[in-house]
């Protein structure tokens, strides 16, 4: 087992596409590191450079103490799990799992023992004699895992290993892979575009955008203290609501003006983000997480200056909670990052965003308690937990925190 270290790693393809730029990242030995980001942000390329399948254009990758830039893939001692599993159709499950051991010319009994052990761990024992095509998606995924673990590599590299499974199986395999990784204690780099996977599986999560690392942190820290708008908007489901606000001084404190409405920020918000004072009179991007919104009728002492008014467009009763989409008369934040995040969800989402901007209307998603009685079409009052608001610089997209760290990383 060994740590994997990226020092200033870049990749430019012969056609001029720069897929990864100046990636600096150190995984710890035994760590579960997740690379997450929209599709096309360079996750796979970064992983393939570690595996040796893609040449490194600049910088250095180390596995343990060894610089591997010039080491051929077969000598890097890492095991990669591919998005499409890459199982050999002409070999049985047994031979697929045994593939690397046979290459190493290990003793037959030893190979057999290892393959059967892995098969037992992964619940594949009944299928050892089958060809991959006679397996379900989940079973194939397990074979791919088995083929990786019997190698006892220095590190696992997994490229969206669950993206071809249905939702239910994905949840199950998520837990299984996490458990397996913890048991084996092997350094793992896990690539996904699904931020839920990233949050639930990673010891730390590295968020990437257009080939650039945005932030590396444990999931909760990423969630609570996104360094920039992109991270804030990408991490979290449903996503953070992003509105354009103007910071104003009122009654001695700061408040955020959203269209004609005002949210008083209170002392705590300011104490946590001293740099906010510098933005007085300026536009900022205000981030509201859905769980920090609640039906005002259910909150006993929600002051008037910590409420927003909006028209309910849609409610989704999930049993445990009520997901509410409401239209608030305030412009959405539309920056490069926001457009990119919208485009990653779908072209129609990006188009809607532009439209909303024109109408000065933002659809805000709130996570209300299941007891809420709001109805579609109603105008309702929403209590906002202003201690949990996020603020970002409109120009740089950086999170507004304290003076020193402020707008730099």
């Amino acid at each position: 087992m060994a740590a994997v270290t990226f020092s200033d790693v870049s990749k430019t393809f012969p056609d001029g596409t720069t897929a990864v730029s100046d990636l600096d990242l150190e995984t710890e030995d035994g760590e579960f590191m997740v690379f997450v980001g929209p599709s096309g942000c360079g996750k796979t390329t970064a992983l393939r450079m570690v595996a040796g399948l893609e040449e490194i254009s600049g910088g250095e990758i180390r596995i343990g103490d060894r610089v591997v830039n010039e080491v051929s893939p077969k000598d890097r001692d890492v095991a990669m799990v591919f998005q499409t599993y890459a199982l050999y159709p002409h070999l049985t499950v047994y031979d697929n799992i045994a593939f690397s051991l046979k290459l190493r010319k290990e003793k037959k009994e030893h190979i057999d023992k290892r393959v059967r052990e892995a098969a037992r761990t992964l619940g594949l024992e009944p299928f050892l004699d089958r060809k991959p095509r006679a397996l379900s998606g989940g079973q194939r995924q397990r074979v791919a895992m088995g083929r990786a673990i019997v190698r006892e590599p220095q590190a696992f590299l997994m490229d969206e290993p669950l993206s071809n499974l249905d939702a239910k199986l994905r949840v199950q395999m998520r837990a299984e892979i996490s458990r397996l990784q913890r048991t084996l204690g092997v350094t793992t780099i896990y690539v996904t575009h699904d931020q839920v996977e990233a949050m639930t599986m990673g010891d730390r999560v590295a968020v990437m955008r257009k080939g650039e690392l945005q932030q590396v942190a444990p999931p909760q820290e990423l969630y609570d203290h996104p360094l920039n708008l992109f991270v804030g908007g990408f991490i979290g489901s449903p996503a953070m609501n992003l509105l354009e606000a103007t910071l104003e001084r009122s009654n001695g404190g700061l408040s955020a003006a959203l269209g004609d409405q005002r949210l008083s920020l209170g002392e705590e918000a300011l104490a946590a983000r001293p740099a906010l004072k510098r933005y007085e009179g300026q536009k900022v991007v205000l981030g509201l997480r859905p769980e920090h919104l609640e039906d005002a009728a259910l909150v006993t002492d929600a002051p008037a200056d910590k409420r927003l008014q909006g028209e309910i467009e849609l409610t989704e009763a999930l049993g445990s909670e009520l997901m509410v989409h409401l239209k608030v008369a305030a412009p959405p934040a539309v920056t490069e990052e926001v457009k990119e995040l919208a485009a990653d969800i779908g072209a129609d989402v990006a188009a809607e965003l532009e439209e909303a901007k024109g109408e000065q209307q933002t659809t805000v998603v709130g996570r209300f308690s299941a007891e809420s009685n709001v109805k579609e079409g109603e105008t309702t009052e929403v209590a906002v937990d202003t201690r949990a608001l996020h603020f970002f610089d409109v120009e740089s997209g950086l999170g507004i925190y304290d003076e020193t760290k402020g707008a730099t990383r």
Partner: protein
Amino acid sequence: MRRPFDTMLALAAAIAFAFLLLPIVALFLRVAPNDLIGGLGSEEVRDALLVSLKTSAIAHVIVLLVGTPVAYLLGTRSFRGRGLLITLIELPLVLPPAVAGIGLLAAFGRRGLLGDELEALGVRIPFTQTAVVLAIVFVASPFYVRQAIAAFASVDRTLLDASRTLGSGPARTFRRVALPLAAGGLAAGSSLAFARGLGEFGATILFAGSFPGVTRTAPLAIYAELDRSFDSALALGALLVVVSVVVLVAVKALTSWTLFGWTSPSPSAPSTSS
């Protein structure tokens, strides 16, 4: 609407099959089974068949040994000029065999492009068995290489990547993964190329001549016999058909056997219910 259309399709198929099979049927109607066996007794016929089999076999080995790596390169790497190279490989397909023969003479003949160099080495190629082999290689190789390129290109690239991360070098990846996965296409191309080589006529007669026992292959012998006796030409033709069919069936069987080996679950596998 469907009826007339289906009838038309059936009619076209019937005409095609009748036309394609007629010469072969005619051949065997004219040649009694005894003559077929008897043909083997004639020295000319035996010589011609031996020359054909020997040169075809050697040419085929060359095609496979050189063509396979070329096809692997062209099928799995992308680089500038790849399309052009593939077109060049296909060129002999559209070249009239007689032109191929003249071209080979112009290249390897005594007064050809490489004539002086070959002379200096003391090598004489035209009108030898080597020339027959070269003619066959030139004319038949595209049939194999083209199909082999397609076969290698259709091997999932991540399977090759996976093999490399699992500890095998490029050579072993080729042998353990690419080759078995492309085997079906390779075998099909191989049988086509062999059949084409066995029937080679135009390039051979121009480049190698038609010397009995040396460069006179079965197709050339048929042509030579035609002047002497139509019947023995017929007998030789029928024999060549038999040999070709045997070869074709053998290669086809090999192909489908390999494919069958992959697709069927192994006999010891338990039932699919889990």
